[in-house]
């Protein structure tokens, strides 16, 4: 187990391909306060995510972790610093960095199928109609929503809504999947189920994932690395925790594992230091 005992600002480079895919370099985000002074949210973030790596960013609320993922999505611009995906600078939103939103962000006037179809139509403009329908159906099936495919969002439970959110994001075949507290609004019984489902999908289709969360168990259970942020203002990366637990992972087995508890305690100790 490789727990970096010293707080580091540089990410672990132990994954060979990590430095070539998503690179976040010295990203600073500041907002202008009404009195004209600067409020610095992020004070110099350096992070990389590998092409097939699942990385979680964890921190207390208000530490700027959502701001960070929004910068990667292109929905916000960094005040200084650079984010590159496969060497190309990120300046605006793009479908190769599709996001799953905390509040689902489903369009309420469209059915499950139509919500996913909207995204597929937009991203695969050159594909034939049959191909696009095929992609939509495949992803509805992937999240087990075939029976609810023609329902409207207001007829679905929170867990089902977020499955639509996940299916919509995956259907656009992004290079980097961004999950902004995707399970945050779900109840305690639905959450583990959906976590498992997303993890299973990822196990079958390894790709780069960046997930924001404030749940230590969720972060450790799902990720290859957990990035722990210090509290804002001027939040930075306090520590990066490698999670060498074997995959596929099973929640029940993990509960028996000593290694899991050591990682968990370490992460909790870190977060408590910044309370």
């Amino acid at each position, binding site marked *: 187990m490789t727990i970096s005992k010293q707080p580091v600002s540089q990410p672990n480079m132990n994954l060979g391909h990590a430095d070539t895919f998503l690179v976040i370099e010295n990203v600073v985000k500041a907002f202008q306060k009404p009195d004209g002074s600067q409020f610095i949210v992020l004070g110099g973030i350096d992070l990389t995510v590998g092409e097939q790596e699942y990385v979680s960013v964890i921190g207390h609320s208000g530490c700027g972790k959502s701001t960070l993922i929004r910068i990667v999505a292109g929905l916000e611009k960094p005040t200084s610093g650079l984010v590159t995906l496969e060497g190309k600078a990120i300046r605006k939103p793009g479908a190769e960095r599709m996001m799953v939103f905390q509040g689902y962000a489903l*369009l309420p*006037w469209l059915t499950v199928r139509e919500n996913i179809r909207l995204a597929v139509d937009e991203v695969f403009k050159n594909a034939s109609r049959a191909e696009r329908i095929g992609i939509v159906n495949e992803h509805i099936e992937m999240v087990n929503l075939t029976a609810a495919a023609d329902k409207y969002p207001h007829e679905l439970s929170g867990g089902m809504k977020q499955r639509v959110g996940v299916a919509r994001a995956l259907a*656009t075949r992004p290079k980097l999947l961004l999950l902004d507290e995707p399970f945050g609004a779900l109840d305690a019984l639905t959450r583990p189920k959906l976590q498992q489902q997303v993890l299973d999908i990822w196990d079958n289709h390894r790709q780069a994932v960046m997930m924001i969360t404030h749940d230590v168990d969720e972060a450790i259970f799902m990720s290859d690395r957990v990035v722990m942020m210090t509290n804002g203002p001027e939040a930075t990366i306090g520590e990066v925790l490698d999670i060498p637990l074997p995959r596929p992972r099973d929640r029940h087995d993990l509960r028996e594992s000593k290694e899991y508890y050591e990682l968990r305690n370490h992460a909790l100790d870190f977060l408590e230091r910044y309370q």
Partner: protein
Amino acid sequence: MTLLLSLAVNAKNSLLGQLRRQIFRPNVMLPMAGFAGVIALWWVIALFRQEMMPTPLEALVKNLDFIIHPFYRRGPGDLGLGWLLLASLRRVCIGFLLGAIVAIPVGVLIGLSHAAWLAINPIIQVFKPVSPLVWLPIALAIFNSAEPSAIFVIFITSLWSTIINTAEGVANVPKDYLEVAEVLEMPRWKQLLKVVIPASLPYIFTGLRISLGIAWLVIVAVEMLTGGIGIGFFVWDEWNRLNVSSVFLAVFVIGLTGLILDYALAKLQTVVTHRPARS
């Protein structure tokens, strides 16, 4: 045989019992009690002002001809209430549709563009509190004829609520929806058609429903002034003949028609937006 008979009696009893239970349910009973209260109040007032006011029963008897024959034609100026109602509805529909055609795009424009909002909002704020009837003389001066003037007044009436609500809807499209569109790299014009306008539809419909409600209020007043064929002129004409009974009938007819108009728009809203409408 006795068994069959007793079965039949039982069935009849249970059916009657069911009907009785239906009637005694609070959401049936209480509205009926409310109307009964209003009619009782009318009755009491009619007893004190016997020379002018008909009692509900007298009014019903006098109006029976109107109620049974809504579509009679007994001469150029003597038409059934149904014809008058249709004439009024026609004016309201034309004026209201023209109003919606202008108001929705204007609302979208000022919801999207701060410059347009700065230019148009003061006009709305100044004109909105003006009673639509004030526009009647101006309309008569322009058109020199009652019919287009009445429609013009309804048109003006229909504008304000629809513009304001549409603009509010467009300006308040949830940020999440727009961010989804942005992440999908949707061009601006497509975001407008596929996200902004569908997301604003509930607001637009709220505006339309308020506008239509006011339009239906105003048409009665307009027709009282312009004359011609219509439910408004009917009220004024009957009053001049001291037929207060007919005026009571008109109250119910106008009220029910307004209710149906609103209900129809609410239904349309449910169909168009795929979400249940709040009434």
